[in-house]
């Protein structure tokens, strides 16, 4: 996270005046509220913060947050955010998206963004359904779920985003529930503060295509991580990641480690490259001239 010194900001400073397209009762309202609160809690300068998304219900979030916001194309939010962060590592970069955007059309970017450990925060709002296109099966839909494209029940096994994050090398992995905004905003704030790739698996029910009872179903399953749970312990994190979320949904910080970031690596490469510098365009030109004295003279 970049150092930012601005006057104390409040939630309303982060709230854009665009009216959300979400259905009444949508879990994503809770996520938006948590994001405003987290940004206010950290007092982040909206002009030094970038919120990127792809396509989907949850990817509409950037329109509702007063930052530099970029609602892009389906599945590509993470690489676009990667470009933003590499261009200006001083920015705080957030990515919002959903299960289809992140774990179907954009899956490979999740793998590689986590592996690179670039310092961005990814909040993936998982509702287990394609809502924007009005109710098709998603990669995190439970087995046997009946949707418009799984008329006889979902015949595929669901993906496990938390396990995947752990496998791919994410250095901050947490789960939150949009029905618990207080906990969610703490988790999002911690994710932003973490230096490295932070993944927040945000359980955010779709009341329209999964039913209004989804909130109750999730509430029955959620539980806090056990007393004494150690997020620096990979084995403990793995045990949580392997839990069947159709039975138990553990909330909290599941895994955290410190590791050099992608930006650190690029800094190091630049320092190595510049060791014999500074360089000019004439140097490049001379490198094409056989045995040019200026090139030969360089140690």
């Amino acid at each position: 996270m970049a150092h930012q010194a601005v006057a104390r900001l409040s939630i309303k400073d982060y709230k854009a005046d665009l009216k959300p397209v979400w259905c009444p009762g949508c879990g994503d309202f809770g996520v938006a509220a948590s994001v405003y609160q987290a940004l206010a809690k950290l007092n982040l300068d909206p002009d030094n913060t970038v919120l990127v998304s792809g396509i989907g219900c949850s990817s509409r979030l950037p329109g509702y947050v007063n930052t530099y916001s970029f609602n892009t194309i389906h599945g590509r939010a993470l690489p676009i955010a990667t470009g933003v962060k590499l261009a200006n590592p001083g920015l705080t970069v957030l990515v919002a998206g959903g299960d289809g955007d992140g774990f179907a059309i954009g899956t490979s970017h999740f793998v590689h963004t986590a592996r690179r450990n670039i310092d961005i925060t990814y909040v993936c709002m998982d509702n287990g359904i394609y809502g924007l296109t009005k109710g098709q099966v998603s990669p995190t839909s439970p087995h046997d779920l009946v949707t418009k494209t799984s008329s006889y029940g979902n015949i595929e096994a669901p993906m496990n985003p938390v396990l995947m994050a752990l496998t791919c090398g994410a250095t901050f992995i947490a789960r939150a529930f949009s029905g618990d905004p207080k906990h969610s905003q703490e988790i999002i704030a911690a994710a932003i503060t973490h230096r490295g790739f932070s993944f927040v698996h945000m359980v955010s029910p779709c009341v329209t295509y999964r039913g209004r009872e989804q909130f109750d179903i999730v509430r029955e399953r959620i539980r806090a991580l056990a007393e004494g749970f150690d997020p620096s312990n990979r084995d403990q994190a793995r045990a949580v990641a392997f839990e069947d979320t159709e039975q138990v949904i553990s909330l909290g910080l599941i895994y955290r480690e410190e590791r050099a970031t992608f930006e650190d690596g690029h800094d190091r490469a630049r320092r190595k490259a510049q060791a014999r510098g500074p360089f000019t365009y004439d140097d490049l030109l001379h490198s094409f001239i056989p045995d040019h004295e200026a090139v030969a003279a360089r140690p």
Partner: protein
Amino acid sequence: MSRKDLVVGMAGAGGDGVVSAGELALNVAAQQGLFGMLVKSFGPQIRGGESSIRLRLSSEPVLSQGDELDVLIAFNWADYARFRSELVPNAQTIIFVDEQDKTPEKDIPLAEALKRAVRRIPFEQIAVEKAGTALAKNIVAVGVLAGALNLPTDGFVKAIGRRFAKKGEKVVASNVAALAAGAEVAAQYRRGDVRLVPAPSGPLMIVAGNDATGFGALAAGCRFIASYPITPQSEVMEYLNRELPKFGGTMVQGEDELASIAMAIGASYAGVKSMTASSGPGISLKQEAIGLASIAEIPLVVLNVQRVGPSTGIPTKTEQGDLLQGIFGTHGDASKVVVGTTDVEDCFWVTVDAFNIAEEYQTPVLVLSDQFVGHRTEIVRPFDLSKLTVRDRKKPTEEELAAVDHRHGFARFADTDDGISPMSIPGMPGGSYLNSGLEHDVVGAPLSGVAGHQKMTEKRWQKLDTVADRYRHLMVVAGARDADVGIMAWGACKGAVLEAVAALEASGVKARAVVPRLLWPFPVADVEAALKGLRAIHVVELSYSAQFHTFLKSQLSAEVAGRLVRHARAGGAPLGVNEVLAWVGSDGRRAAAD
């Protein structure tokens, strides 16, 4: 008659050192003040395998690969056979083969009349005798070239000294002996009609097209590239991987083509001049994101080093089959700019222009290069960097940002006279706004009405109205003012077309070449002015479906379009001068075969 240039072909197996012999000769030629072009061709093997070169050296800047071979060296006929369509000898060509080749005469892959003219030279035997290793047979071959073509050997001797310096004096001496022996044995076949006079212009540079593109990007201010390896583009990302960090820039090898263009869009959105580079298959994958850069008005350069398609096609061969995809690709009415590079030096300057246009007009710019230009190496005069002009995107001033009503955000897509809206960059106080791939209004808020969509589409298209006028230097017009025969081409066909025009003029036919580098928005007025007075306009291209011809018909007035004559073939090998002359006819009036 004394010739000002010569063309050499060489083919052999992996390990024969064909390519390094060509590079050595090119190096020596450049140091002696000669111009040249080296075209390499390889078999499909990942490493090793047969390879060939075509080397043209000249007293004057070289425009094309040259049609007629003065010398052909085959280390063996089996490997040569793979390149027989690229290296075709004629009755004047001096043909050498290694004495050790045992191919029966009936199987030698040459025309019957040429088989008897083949000179057998003990390349390998000389190499072993003089240098103690068969590996030196390419040095013997370079000696044979020097002997047969009457080239001074002192430059080669110096080059060998540099090349083998680390291996000690003995190795240098033995390789020099191998060179001298080759020159001696070939002296009896010497051609007296070739005389290359060095240009007195100072040092010359040796540069490959893809390296020139990378250099051009860097010089234009590019500080970010994300790309995925693909033939024949990879040298561009490799060059920038090596050079960008020296200038504070960043190169990322993306996990795929989609991520690569997405990263470049993100980096440019955040204020850094950015590009992505690929070839056909990768460019197809990038199409959706090109539309995002268009609607989100983000400066972006997308390089396409074209190769034979569709699908995997022939990755190591050239074609011009991506023109219409470049102009009309991606869904929706996406405004963008398309430019084409015509030779190695163009790879530098056209890339600079591409960045300038992208920045100035806040638009994606596609640069269409191709395998022939990208992979070939030329000896050229050093690029005149004093002519370098670098343009930047228009940004809002602090006063403008201070006046922003923050309930609505900065009007990033504000209505302006020229359609170009100041672009705020993340980090600029007061400049935050919503950008979106959704159709949007002036502050970036999504809109779905007809009037709004019409207005914003007009803005994105009309802002490009001035490109053709402001970048007029992108047009190439050469030949007679009073010509009545015209030849039109784009991209790498330029060299063969310019030589064909010169050949027609030498035979008394007044001709003119018109080669636009700016392909979209098409500079209709300038092109029609350049075509004025021409009775026949031959359109030549390496596209089976004649994409350029189709495109020209859609852009030019019916009267001008009625004078176009279509000449098109599939790619696979660069266009030759003789091919253009055969298409056009000796009087320049031949109608198209169809």
